Every structure is written in C-alpha cells, then in structure tokens.
C-alpha cells in the first residue's frame, strides 16, 4: 500500500472519529444543544446535505443499471459493480445521518407501521427502504462469492435483471419525491428555486450527477490503484496526464491502447452531460415561463448563488466533456465529474437551506458539530468503499493489483474471522495513534452545549399592551428575573427631555447593557438596609395569593397608597404587618406616630432604634444598639468581628456570649 493512500486513510479515520464523537454528543445532549437548528430552520445540514444530497449522489446504481440491464449497453458493465457499491454506501450513510437528525431516533421504524399515504416523506421513506434492500440484493453476490456461498450468489445473480428494474422504478419515484418534499413551501422557498417542476429537476440533476460520481470514483480509484487503465502510460512517468493527453488527442483511437477505460468513462460522462444539459434547458425555460427571471435580475445574493450553482453543476462539466481535448484526459474528466457532484450538493443546499433565508429573516449556519457528523459519515462511507475496492473485485484490475500488493488477501474471506485482522493489518498502531489523538481533540472541539445567540437578561424589547402609546418597555432592569413595565418617555421627561439619555445609557458598568433600575431607585435595593424590598415583594405576593405573570408586580398596592407615587412616604408602617414581631415595642406604638411613616429611614429608626437603645440598657447588651446590628454591611471593614458578634447576640438572646 503506498504511503499516499495510507495518509488519505488516516485523514478519513480522523474525520470519521470526529463524526462519531459528534454522534455521541448529539445523543447525549440532544438536538438543541448540539446543533444550530431552530424553529426558523427545522431542517439543517444533516437532512439537506446528507439525506437529500447524499441520496441524489447515489443515483449511479440505478442509472448504470438502466444502461446495462435495460438498454443492454454491455460496454458499461464493468461500472455496474462500483455503481451499486456507491449506491449502497450512499444510501447507508444518508440513513445513518438521518438517524441522528430525527428527534427521536429510537422511533425510526414508526413509518413502517404508521402510515400516512398523503405524505411525500412517507413515500420517500418507503422507497428508500425498499431501494436500500434492492441495492443489498444487487451487491451481495460479490460478497457471497468471496465467502464461498456460490449457489446463493448464483441465485441472486439470476434474479438481478428483475431486481434492477424494480430498483429503477423505485428510484424514479423517490428521487422525484425528494424534490416534491419542497413543494409544500411555495410561500417560503425563494422563487428562484421554487418551481412546480422541482421533482423533475431533482431526478434529472440526480441522474446526471450520479453518473458523474461513478466517473469520479473510477478516476480516483484508477489513480490510486490502477493508473494504466485510464492514464495509459507507465506509472513511472510523473506527468501522466499530459502524456495521456498527447497520446489521446491525435486520433479517436488512442495510440496507447492500454488506456482502455477512457472510452467507457467518456461515454458515461457524455450521457450524464446530455441529461444535465436538458436539465439546464428545462430549468431556464421554467424560469422564463414563470416570470421568475425578474427576480434573477434583481441582483441580490440569491441571484449570484443561483448562477454559481448552475455554472458548477452544469456548465463546467458540459464544457469539459464536450471539448475533445479535455474529455480524453482523465484528470479533466475527474474535475468535470467533481464539479457536477459539487454542483448537485450545492443545489440541494440551496433548495433546502439558502432558499429559506429570505423568508425566515435569519441565517442558519451549521454548528461545528453538525459539520463533524456530516463529514464523518461521508468519510466512513469512503473508508468502506476503499476497503471494498481493495479486498473485493469491484474494479477488477485494481483489485488484482491490490491483491498482489497485499499479497495474502486471497483467502481473506474464506475465513470471516480474519476480517478484523485484515482491516487492521499494518495499520493497528497508526489507528491507535489516530484514535488517541482524535478523541480528546474532538471532545475539546465539539463539546456542547453551544451558547444560544440570545442573551436572556440583557434583552430590551418594546412590549405590547395598553401602555403602548406611553412607550412602555418591558424590561428586567435589575436582572432579577422579574420583568416590569418601564415607561421610557416618562423617565425621559422627568430626567430632562432629549438631553437626558446619558443619565442611564452612558454610565454602564463594564459588561452591562444598561443601567439597572436600582441605580436610581436606591430605596429598593440599598445594601445598607435591613429592609429587603424584593423579599417583601415576593412574600407579600405569596401571602396575598396574587396571580399573573409576575405576582410580585401586583404587590405594590398592598403597602403603597395606589394614588400616590411609590415612595417610602406612601408606604404603610411596618407595624401594621409586623405587630407580632415587635413584642417588646408594643407600648411604643402609642408614643410614636407610626400610622403615617414620616419617611423610610426615619420610620425605621424611630420604630426600631428607640427600643433597641432602651432594651440594650435594660438587658445590659450594648451590641443591640450598635448600627451594625441592623446594617450588616455598614461597618464590616473596620470591625467585622464585632458586627458578626452583634448579630449572633441578637439571634441567640438567651445566651449572650
């Protein structure tokens, strides 16, 4: 095995391990914490790229099957096996990604038994399940032969023709239905991508790009394992592609006849390009007829994206394949195929994600974890593909060469128990190293939950309601979890009109979004007071069984005179509620005018400190009359121990220590 393939495999393993870590996090933490999906974008990368795009790129199985089994174009038969392998792995990886995408993965079997025949998704589900079974039947003879079960393989081979045709009709249904999925959003999907012809667009582009994927796979595998089959020159020459270009452009028949697979690939690519060309024409005709070309001319970013998508998916491949010089070069053919595949993926992402940006008024960017799982699943599929190519006769010559390189793969499948040994041979230490390296890295890189974009407590938003004309905001001014009405213009007027903004908005503390209410309404929150306004709000709300969003917000009138501004002057006296708490001060009630509190501070001092002073003398406990007894933070720096002592003395009156 040459070192380049080994490095590619290591890289794929790394991506795959990241994907598995992402899958673990997704199952452990749930969808919301690990993805950037939201109510505005319920469908994200996993569904659009892996499911809709991945399935579309796996059309090769049925398209090549149509050419070989129905049209009897025997020259394409060598591509049948790899095409089916691509289809099998493509569908398998798509379903795997989808399993992580659905909210309740353990219920993936529900559509088998719970039917809704009016749903396109239902139809897609059934067709995908059935077609996956078909690809399994189609692909299994290769494995069965290798395992020595020749009779079963022969039986499956005999029914292959019928199975392939069944597979073709299933594919026709679900590839078009994948497009029909988006027919339900005429008012949400951008008009450039929405069209009643979406099902036709989807199946045509999928067939074209799916055939191109076979070409791509063949070219890449040939580069890795069997350069002669497409380059037709000795592998020792470094500039292989240029040589083959020179060799092939002279005449229709290549001078170097060893590049035997090139005509086959060109044939497939030409068919693909005819399909893609028709797709482009229908698409443009639809644009003209529906009048959406006006939208294209608006010059928004969607127009450019639409153009780029069409250029990548159709124009570049068609030009490269139509040009005789480039189409005979495997490298250019590979570029054309890659461009078509990339263009198809872009088209699916456009229809499934970008097309909804304008309607949602928001942007969806997949989280790192979504990318990791998405790419990890694809990397896993490529790894399995490489394994199959190396150890099973999918590309005959490549397999033979690889077998010679590996030396002893001959009986690899005669004993199933040796499979793990085969996987790990020569790579065990490398794999261990990669795993040890990848898992902590993936953990660090992907660890959820991601912080949501909205910051809960620094959010000011115009409220609705009766007060709207008074410009009332609903704010959580003190970041205490209690939202309250904030008449903004009243505050503005009171503070001096238009020039008063800076009173609140430019004295922010670092990290704060705006001045808290308590900055000005200090009576509520002054930390030198023993009186806790918020505590009173809460307890009063509970005691009076108030209701509503915030029961606290309705508690004002319990203590304050509703007709007056809510100041300490309009508040009840403490004794009205706390009569029982002040057993020793009952006689003071007569002497002090407690019915109308003269002022908050004054009221407090009159109600409490007079008694405290007399009681301190009577009980010989001087701490009772200390300021710090009731103002725990008043003198903490100078004499914290004394304050603490005073407090404990107050609490345990029986045992003054």
């Amino acid at each position, binding site marked *: 095995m040459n070192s380049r393939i080994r490095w590619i495999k290591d890289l794929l393993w790394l991506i795959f391990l990241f994907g598995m870590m992402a899958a673990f996090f997704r199952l452990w933490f749930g969808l919301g914490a690990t993805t950037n999906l939201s109510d505005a974008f319920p469908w994200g990368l996993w569904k659009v790229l892996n499911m809709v795009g991945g399935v579309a790129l796996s059309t090769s199985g049925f398209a090549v099957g149509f050419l070989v089994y129905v049209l009897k174009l025997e*020259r394409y038969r060598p591509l049948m096996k790899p095409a089916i392998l691509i289809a099998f792995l493509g569908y398998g990886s798509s379903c795997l990604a989808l399993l992580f995408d659905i909210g309740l993965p353990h219920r993936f079997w529900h559509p088998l038994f*719970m039917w809704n025949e009016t749903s396109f998704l239902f139809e897609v*589900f059934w067709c995908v399940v059935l077609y996956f079974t078909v690809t399994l039947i189609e692909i299994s003879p290769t494995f069965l032969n290798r395992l020595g079960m020749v009779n079963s393989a022969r039986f499956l081979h005999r029914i292959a023709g019928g199975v392939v045709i069944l597979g073709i009709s299933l594919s026709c249904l679900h590839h078009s239905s994948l497009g029909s999925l988006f027919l339900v959003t005429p008012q949400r999907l951008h008009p450039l991508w929405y069209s009643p012809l979406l099902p036709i667009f989807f199946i045509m582009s999928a067939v074209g790009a799916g055939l191109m994927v076979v070409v791509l796979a063949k070219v890449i595998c040939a580069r890795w394992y069997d350069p002669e089959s497409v380059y037709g020159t000795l592998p020792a020459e470094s500039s292989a592609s240029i040589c083959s270009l020179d060799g092939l452009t002279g005449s229709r028949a290549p001078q170097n006849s060893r590049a035997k697979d090139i005509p086959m690939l060109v044939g497939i690519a030409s068919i693909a390009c005819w399909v893609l060309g028709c797709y482009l024409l229908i698409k443009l005709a639809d644009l003209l007829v529906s009048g959406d070309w006006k939208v294209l001319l608006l010059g928004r970013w969607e127009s450019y994206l639409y153009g780029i998508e069409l250029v990548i998916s159709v124009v570049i491949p068609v030009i490269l394949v139509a040009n005789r010089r480039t189409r005979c070069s495997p490298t250019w053919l590979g570029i054309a195929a890659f461009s078509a595949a990339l263009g198809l993926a872009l088209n699916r992402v456009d229809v499934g994600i970008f097309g909804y940006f304008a309607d949602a008024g928001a942007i969806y960017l997949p989280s790192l974890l979504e990318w990791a799982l998405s790419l990890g699943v694809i990397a896993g599929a490529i790894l399995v593909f490489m394994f199959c190519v190396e150890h099973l006769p999918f590309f005959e010559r490549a397999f033979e060469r690889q077998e010679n390189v590996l030396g002893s793969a001959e009986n690899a499948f005669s004993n199933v128990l040796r499979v793990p040994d085969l996987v790990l041979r020569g790579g065990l230490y490398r794999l261990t190293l990669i795993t040890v390296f990848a898992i902590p890295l993936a953990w660090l890189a992907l660890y959820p939950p991601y912080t949501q974009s909205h910051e809960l407590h620094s959010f000011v938003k115009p409220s609705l309601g009766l007060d709207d004309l008074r410009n009332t905001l609903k704010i959580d001014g003190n970041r205490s979890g209690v939202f309250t009405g904030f008449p903004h213009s009243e505050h503005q007027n009171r503070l001096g009109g238009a020039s008063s903004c800076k009173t609140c908005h430019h004295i922010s503390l670092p990290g704060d979004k705006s001045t808290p209410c308590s900055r000005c309404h200090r009576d509520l929150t002054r930390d030198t007071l023993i009186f806790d306004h918020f505590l009173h709000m809460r307890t009063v709300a509970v005691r009076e069984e108030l209701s509503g969003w915030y029961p606290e917000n309705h508690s004002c009138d319990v203590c304050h005179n509703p007709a007056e501004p809510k100041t300490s002057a309009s508040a009840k006296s403490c004794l009205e509620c706390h009569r029982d708490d002040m057993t020793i001060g009952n006689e003071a009630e007569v002497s002090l005018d407690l019915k109308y509190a003269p002022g908050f501070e004054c009221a407090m001092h009159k109600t409490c400190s007079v008694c405290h002073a007399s009681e301190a003398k009577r009980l010989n406990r001087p701490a009772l009359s200390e300021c710090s007894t009731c103002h725990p933070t008043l003198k903490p720096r100078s004499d914290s121990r004394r304050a603490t002592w005073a407090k404990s003395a107050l609490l345990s009156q029986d045992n003054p220590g």
Partner: protein
Amino acid sequence: MFAILVDVTKCTGCEKCVEACVQAHDQDLRKAAVDRVTTKDGLSANRFCTVLQAEPGRFARKSCMHCLEPSCVAACLVGSLTKTPEGAVVYDPAKCIGCRYCMLACPFHIPRYQWESITPFVMKCDLCIDRLREGKVPACVEACPHGALSFGERQAILDLAHLQVTQTDCNYLPRIWGEEEYGGTSVLYLSDVDLGCMGWPADKSIPIPEITDPLITRTPHIGLGVLAGLFGLKWIIDRRTLLMDGRQEAPDPEEDATGEVERDE
C-alpha cells in the same frame, strides 16, 4: 366544526389569552414570559399563543390557524397530526419520530420544537380540544377581557363576521382573513389594518395539499407505469439483440458513446 373569530380592533394586547393558554396547558408561566422576549414572534414550545402588533395600537392574537386543509397533516409521515371533527388540528406525541417536516410545511410557521429536550416533541395549539369535549370554550376565548375573541360553529362565526363587516361602522377592511386563504382556516380575523405580518398571504392562495395531492395520489400509478415500461423496453431490446446476435457482434468499444446510442438502440 368550530372556529375562533379575532376582532383586531378590540384587542388591546394585554396577553390575558396567553396567560390562560399557558395555564390551561400546565406550562411554566416564567418560561413563557421569557420566551415572549427571546423569540422572534413570541411563539415557542412553552407558548402556543402570542399577541403580535400589526400596527401601533393594533394587536392580533397568533396561534395555530387550524386550517381546513392542513398542510402539516398532509406532510406528517406517520400521521401524528390529525384534523378532528371539532376543527382542531391535534398532535399525537406517541407517533411522532421528530422529522420536523410539519414545521417546514406549515405556511404560518406555527409548530415549535422542544429543542432543549433530549426527547423533543412538536408543540402547538390544540384549540383546547379537551375543554371542547367537556363542552367548554377554549381557554383564550374565555380569558379575553375585551371580547376580542368569539367562538362558535364556523359557519355561524363567518355569518357574524360578514354582518360586522357590512353593518358596523368600525372601518373594517372588506376581507375576513381565514375565510379562503389556504383553503380556509378555523381561526378567522376581522381587522381595519393589514395583517400581512402574521403570515397571511397577500391574496387568496390555494391550500397546499392541493399542490401535492395530485402528485402523491398518482405516485403508485407512476411507479407501476415505469415498472411496466421498463420491462417492455427490456423485452424489446432483448429480442432485438437476440435477432441481431447472428449478424453483429457487440458494438465497437472505441466508438464515442454519446446520448445518441440510446436512440440508436
């Protein structure tokens, strides 16, 4: 078939309906209050009902419209969403697999998902179906202190709405939102301002299942047709190759194979 009529001119935006809705569904008032300010339109998995501002001083309650031909019901692949005879579109969490296609399919962006949950479900207004079956009206209608919401048989409600549009001098626009949009809804709006902000289409649009139904009902026929066509094609080509077998060998592999080969065959 019941319906709610929302009179936008009477709504003051006090959100008493939302409070009642949250309490009727045993949800957390605090979470609902936070979602009011953290979500775009005030709808979330904790809040099935919200009040939007159409214009300064004009408010409208927004929740599931309970379409007569609901797109979500047609879209759900396991039949988790159903339209009941009472007119409500209700959700059965026992069937749901969490594909979220209903959220994509809804033209009003109504269904919400419990994103923060490990086992999330779709959440939406159910027209208080349990209360309806007990013979009560929906909680929001009961709670509205300004009489902006009326509830009754859909036809009676429509008649009432038409009567109000023609006979009162409240400057109502001559349109009852929900009468024909998307095939008609069970939540109807009377207004003197435009309600485009709520997701209503500018003109009368056809129900979404009407776009998809012709295709989906023909799908089995299309599939069988393709199958039969393919077998026929295979038979013809098999026979032709059999007849040509004596004369001609397999086509020259060097031949430039383009789309024409399909026709030549």
